[in-house]
């Protein structure tokens, strides 16, 4: 009785917040409603007895993915007037796509055949010899579906490497960088050195400035001095 009531409360909030994700005027509010939707989905998992899935949903989606999503959306500079432009023009095509997806779902559900023991499995999703559903999921995931599991992991790895490759830029040759291991390993914390101009302290591992390419060197120095100011 209480479980059924809780189900309807969470399901209603889930659907309402899903609607708000699409209709909210402010994109940050949309993301926050999305997070609320995730939460209610997690609560529905809990009611279904899938506590591991519920917690993973909160940790992965709410705790990590949505944080980064919110992070990006907050930094976007969105013009609401411009965003609403063309709403009327694109409404029919949007409605057609949405309607077709809805019809497909209806067909799939209409042609759904329930296996004979499906109802029984739904009541007791865990195998009889397993105590918690964490163990049950682990047992299936790492035996029957190990190939799919590893393959999806590899796909994520490729996506990650792709993102890094796209954003990684080679640092200019004369950029400063710090070798923290060398700095920490230094025997004397304080030393005095007569440092040649623009050469840096490579042997101390401090802030190293690599020598500039030979051809550019005089020009770059003159340029720096003009703008750096205060030397002459």
């Amino acid at each position, binding site marked *: 009785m209480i479980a059924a009531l809780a189900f309807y409360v969470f399901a209603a909030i889930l659907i309402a917040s899903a609607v708000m994700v699409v209709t909210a005027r402010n994109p940050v509010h949309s993301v926050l409603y999305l997070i609320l939707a995730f939460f209610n989905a997690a609560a529905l998992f809990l009611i279904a007895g899938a506590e591991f899935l519920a917690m993973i949903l909160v*940790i992965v989606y709410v705790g*990590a993915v949505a944080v980064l999503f*919110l*992070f990006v959306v907050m930094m976007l500079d969105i013009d609401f007037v411009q965003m609403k432009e063309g709403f009327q023009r694109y409404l029919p095509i949007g409605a057609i796509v949405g309607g077709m997806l809805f019809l497909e779902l209806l067909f799939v559900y209409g042609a759904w055949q329930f296996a004979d023991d499906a109802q029984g499995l739904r009541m007791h999703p865990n195998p009889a010899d397993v105590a918690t559903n964490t163990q049950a999921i682990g047992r299936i995931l790492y035996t029957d579906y190990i190939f799919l599991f590893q393959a999806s992991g590899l796909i994520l790895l490729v996506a990650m490497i792709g993102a890094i490759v796209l954003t990684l830029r080679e640092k200019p040759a004369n950029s400063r960088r710090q070798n923290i291991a060398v700095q920490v390993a230094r025997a004397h914390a304080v030393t005095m050195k007569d440092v040649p101009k623009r050469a840096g302290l490579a042997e101390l591992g401090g802030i190293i400035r690599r020598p500039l390419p030979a051809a550019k060197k005089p020009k770059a120095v003159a340029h720096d001095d003009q703008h750096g100011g205060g030397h002459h």
Partner: protein
Amino acid sequence: MDAFLNSSIGILAITIAQTLAILVPLLIFVAYMTYAERKIMAAMQMRVGPNVVGPFGLLQPFADAAKMLMKETIIPSGANRALFIFAPMLTFILAMMAWAVIPVNEGWAIADINVGILYLFAISSLGVYGIIIAGWASNSKYAFLGALRSAAQMVSYEVSMGFVIVTVLLCVGSLNLTQIVMAQKTVWFFIPLFPMFIIFFISTLAETNRPPFDLAEGESELVAGFMVEYSAMTYALFFLGEYANMFLMSAMTTTLFLGGWLAPIDMAPFNWVPGPLWFILKVCLCMFTFVWVRATFPRYRYDQLMRLGWKVFLPISLVWLVLTAFVLKLAGWLPV
């Protein structure tokens, strides 16, 4: 009486009583932690600390609370009102919520759930929302910069924290917090997993935005970071939430590595002391370390903070995780 206790109203009443039994002492501890922090830091810096209100300044927390209550809550005109007020509430509520699963003694958890450690991890990973929402809703540059820093920082350190937790879980074979503590009957996990213990402790400092990782506040460059626009009770909620989060992280450290409510040696003078007292003692030890670190270290530079999280902690915890799995498998210690 039994009939009443087994009815749904009775169960509700028991749950409320249990919740109060955890939260009221927690809030008193939080109040006195602010006092203890000021006293300990004062001792470390050869000052006196609060000593005017009450004997030894012991009533200082209540004076501070009264002051916070009396002040005016100022909401900036450009702020998003609803979210501006929601953010400190969220921080405070999350810090309280997580205590539902912490076992203070054998069977003394409000909810002794199967996935307790995941619940704790989930709640602690939500703490970042209070800060991001506060930073955004304040409509201020400093607050927003603080929020962005904090978001990147907390997400980074959660990764290595997750691996540390997985390593502990490998040794336990269960996600239940009570069983995690019971698995430490022979040896507390901070001895075999010492490097992970250190990584976990430093990550908790970063998770709670405590010095030397308090870049989200950074009073020297961001004035007060994400809470620059907050005043009176809204500020007090952030303050209480931060300290309650520190207690939560200390409780997590205690449960995962310091043997929860277990006595150091299961022998006569030690096991006379009741379990909850051991638990409180260990949590207070962790809290003391929090303050000690604050009084000792300067703030990290932001790029070094990121480097530490991704280039130092993540590889070490990954390698240690695989190593632990190998050792457990080869020695046949893998729990069933």
